[in-house]
């Protein structure tokens, strides 16, 4: 669990009212409701950074303190396509063409340490 940091934050009254409503409906407190919103927004922003190739999926998971699977789940839920650029796929396909020869002598699998 990461350490928390106290951040003084001024928020508009209407959002404060909405947080109070959310807290009431979710049987929690207002601060928790605000933290949940903050986390959802942060996750969405991190996914944007991943999609743009500015950070990796693993780095995003580290920064959000979640399992990397959670980000794949969020990406699919929000219809965010993640993956190689066109140029990167071109490079990958070029290697695939070179490697795609019948393997006459498969390597033995290594042992786990």
């Amino acid at each position: 669990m990461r350490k928390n940091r106290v951040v003084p934050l001024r928020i508009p009254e209407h959002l404060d009212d909405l947080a109070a409503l959310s807290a009431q409906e979710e049987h929690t407190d207002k601060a928790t409701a605000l933290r949940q919103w903050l986390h959802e927004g942060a996750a969405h922003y991190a996914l944007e950074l991943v999609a743009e190739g500015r950070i990796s999926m693993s780095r995003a998971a580290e920064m959000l303190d979640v399992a990397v699977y959670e980000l794949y789940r969020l990406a699919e839920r929000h219809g965010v396509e993640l993956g190689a650029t066109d140029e990167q796929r071109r490079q990958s396909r070029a290697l695939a063409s070179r490697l795609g020869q019948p393997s006459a002598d498969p390597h033995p699998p290594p042992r786990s340490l």
Partner: protein
Amino acid sequence: MQLLLDADGLIKLNRAGVLIQLAETHPCVIPGAVYDEVVTRGKVHLYPDADAIEAAVAGRVAVMPVQHGPGEPEFGLGAGERGILDLLPQLDDAFVVSDDRRFLTVLSMRGIAFLTPADMLVVLARQGVLTEAEARAALERLRPAIRTKAYWDARQDLESRGEGHEEE
């Protein structure tokens, strides 16, 4: 030829259902940090894929500990990808399997060869590790997790490879 897999490569190839076949026919290596990201942390958060990958990796994939020096640049990468960069100089004739745009950018800048998981399926089909039908089924399982263009490219490559070949 050795394959280095990051979290993305492991998760997607497991999702495609070919991780075991891949690891039994090609020497696969992951840094300990990738194992922690995918298996250890995934199990803590109760993701069933983590259990499946743990079982697939056991006895088939070399998990290598890597020390990442403090103060080294991170390039927007996680510990697992940095572990791969640290491992690469120790391995001969290795390439990386990943579909992570940021990681592939760093690999490309360094001139390191890589394959996306979709293209890995194409290679496995061309090498005869997977039949045409198995590769297509694997690609369909992978489809929700990859870009639409990547899916169609791989499908086209599988079909062009299948021309004149006997179907299952």
